[in-house]
């Protein structure tokens, strides 16, 4: 049961983050949601939502997508080799953890 509860919690959290990302992409909606959240008062959920919606001032300067290709086949030979080494190491770790 605790495992199920944790999974459910994680699921809700990820879903909430996705929803927040959507809201952040729509300025008017974001303004509306932040106003509503402020009116709801301060608790851990509203604080979480509010912080996420107003964290733009601290968003990273770099556009990571500029550097990261969509597909492994577009990696440079060296990055590709490092990726494979990392992948193998993670697979080994996953096997050990089983």
């Amino acid at each position, binding site marked *: 049961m605790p495992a199920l509860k944790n999974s459910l919690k994680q699921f809700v*959290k*990820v879903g909430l*983050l996705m929803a927040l990302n959507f809201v952040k992409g729509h300025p008017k909606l974001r303004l509306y949601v932040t106003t509503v959240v*402020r009116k709801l008062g301060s608790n*851990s959920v509203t*604080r*979480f939502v509010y*912080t*996420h919606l*107003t*964290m733009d*001032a*601290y*968003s*990273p*300067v*770099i556009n*990571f997508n*500029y*550097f*990261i*290709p969509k597909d*492994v086949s577009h*990696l*440079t*030979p*060296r*990055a*590709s080799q*490092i*990726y494979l*080494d*990392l*992948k193998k*190491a*993670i697979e*080994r*770790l*996953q096997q050990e*953890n089983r």
Partner: protein
Amino acid sequence: MRLVIDMQGAQTPFSRYRGVGRYTMGLVKALLRDPRDHEIYLALNGAFQDAIDAIRGEFEGLLPQENICVWQQFYDCSAINPHLAQGKWAAEVSRETFLNNLNPDIIFSTNLQEGWYDPAPTSVKVLPSHALFCTTLHDVIPLVYPERYLAAQAIRAWYNEKIEGVRKSDIILTVSEHSKKEIVDLVGVPSDRVAVIYNAVDSLKFKQRNISSDRRDALLAYLGISSPFLLYSGGGDAHKNLHRLYQAFARLPLELRKSHQLVMVGKELHSEQNIHQRILKKLGINASVVFTGYVDDDDLISLYNLCKLFVFPSLHEGFGLPPLEAMACGAPVVASQAASLPEVVGLKEALFDPYDEIDIARKMECALRDFKFRERLRLNGIARVASFSWDNSASKLLDLFDMVGNKLKKNNVSVVNERLTISSAGDISEPVSAVIKGIMTRPIAAQLKPQEMMAIAISLAETYSAETGRSRKLFLDVSAVIKTRDCTGIQRVVRAICYELVRDCKGIEVVPVYTNIDEHEFYQAGLLIDNILGNLADTTENSHIEFCSGDILLYFDLHPGVAISNIDKTRYLRNKGVTVYHVVYDLLPVQYPQYFWPGLCDEFVTWLKAVSYADGALCISRTVALELRQWLDTNIPRRKRPFKIGWFHLGADFENSILFLGMPPDGYDTIGKLASGSSFLVVGTIEPRKGQVQILAAFEQLWAVGMDVNLVIVGKKGWGSKNFANKLLSHPQRGSRLYWIEGISDEYLEKIYTSCICLIAASEAEGFGLPLIEAAQHKISIIARDIPVFREVAGDHAFYFNGREPQALTKAVRQWLELDSQGKVPKSDNMPRLTWKQSAEQLIKVVLGLSQRGETQFLDQYVN
């Protein structure tokens, strides 16, 4: 000792513009001004590219750029996103491996509390290290107000992790005695492990200034300030106690409120303005309060100088930098008596009870009404500031490091001057393996997703070279030669210099490379290398180029599309420590737009702007270098890192260039005809700027009066020359006295040079004038238009003319023929000229910075 300083405190958007950012920059600059016998390296996080450029600019001249090292991190690991926990762990391992790889004796983190909002990993000893960790903890405000700042479980866990990092640190620094006391009480570390290194202000910047009335009026009008004003600058957190400041302002007598404004400076305040405005509206003072948002240092200093009173009502501070800055600028300061502020302000009568808005209002009113009180506050501030200087703080910090170093030496536990490898997390000589091994030491690594693994792989590939300890390389971008293979003059230059440099270059390995527009990766130009070295085709691979700090990329070809599409790449490479230069052949499209089609002029301007993103430019003559400097001064804003402008001269050396061989069927017949008479040669693409129209008209006049002279025009038809080309093709003298030869081989051109008696260079503008050098090499005379670059190249070894009319040139040719008959024409034989080998050597000398500022070969300037 070697100090490695983690500069993320001056990089993250969260800290960069706050006290932490100022502390980091101020203290590190002071350390660099007098590092004693310590070596200092700065470590920067590649996730904050904009800050890297700014930091490199700030430290220009204080620290060699190679001592500024960047670890690349192309993935988010901010703790606010709990689902990125595995990325955060990978980032911490990567950072520590990078820092250890710099062989530090001390790793100094100027703020461990980074990484909640930003992808800024900070950790202490998650990997074994021989270095001592020194950490600054600016305050423990979240521990003082846990219900306010640590209510959420995620932030509590993150903050506790940071506090644990502080506990693990060998040296803990803080910024005031008050903070030290709180750290000892709340973090639970012994008092002797915590040292106070005070914040300070840059006294050269933050000082009293005479602000002209024009400047004052413009600034105040721009910010919406119309009355004498009280000033606050800083953050908007709850402990800043701003609501009481508003209440106190509202309590001021009506005439004071009406005659004064309250000016609130700060980035956060601006973004949260609507919250503040609601409070102000309720108090009925919203019309008297101005929110400026972020203002740069220059404006901030002006505001400090202009304000009537600076008020700082904070309930809690680690130090309280804004009041100190205000005092340095001669502002009267009243501040809260809480936390560290009495230490900073020093004068009891300048303090008020921050929990009592009546007391705040009373102090403000007293200061606003009483000039003598304000003067006392002002004089106190100026005297007080003298005891806070970054040089003192840096000196105290170095004393501390020296003491620790000596202690370790005495106990024979020295890390000093002993470079060891780390065995348990992997050998640091193999940092990529060490990072992977390090990441795998925690089970959370199993949660890394393919996209995260790709990002980590790219970050590591970009941070560490595959060839460990390889020497620096000079990469020559020859994309246009590889892609278009036109026989333009520029491509002749590129091929000739590549030929020399690839075969033999002392001091640095030279690799020709190319790129594709929109791809942003560079590849070795295998075919060109094989051609130069005489290898069989496909011997050299077109392998992917890996740039390392210390390398140089020289955009040698003129390929505007490549330079323009690579602006971000150029910025990235420079941030990484690669020096990027462009070769500038001329500025003709911006100087003489009438000679070029509009699209080209626009593209050229865009290209020049792209050039300005590099470290500098190498021009093919001093004239072009001066013209470029003038253009940049006029068109590009100033920047902190110098834009270096150097110049070199082109060579001429037919026998040692890569020659295009071959003679046309009638070639020898033409050569015979030219050699048998007085033949004048014109070399260059046919276009309006080159003056061929004037030359032909002049020769028509000479032929009309029966003079027996030949005119040979060598060059392809260029832009805007259709009518002239048709005229040449249908000219009655064509084939007898007039010759137009297109698409000529190097071999044929050389033979034509030897069969002519004089070169006519009538261009109205040129970058260099290579035909002049070629003429001198073939010992034929020169008639040249009197323009600066021809004077630079030919000096007294040419016969010059002025004027755009045919008669001017007709007269010049006649005079020249008369002088020739008397043996008095200026000879080109002794004209100073370079072979391509010498030209390449000159280029390398400038590129490698052997020509220092002040020498004629290198023009330094500060432009953006």
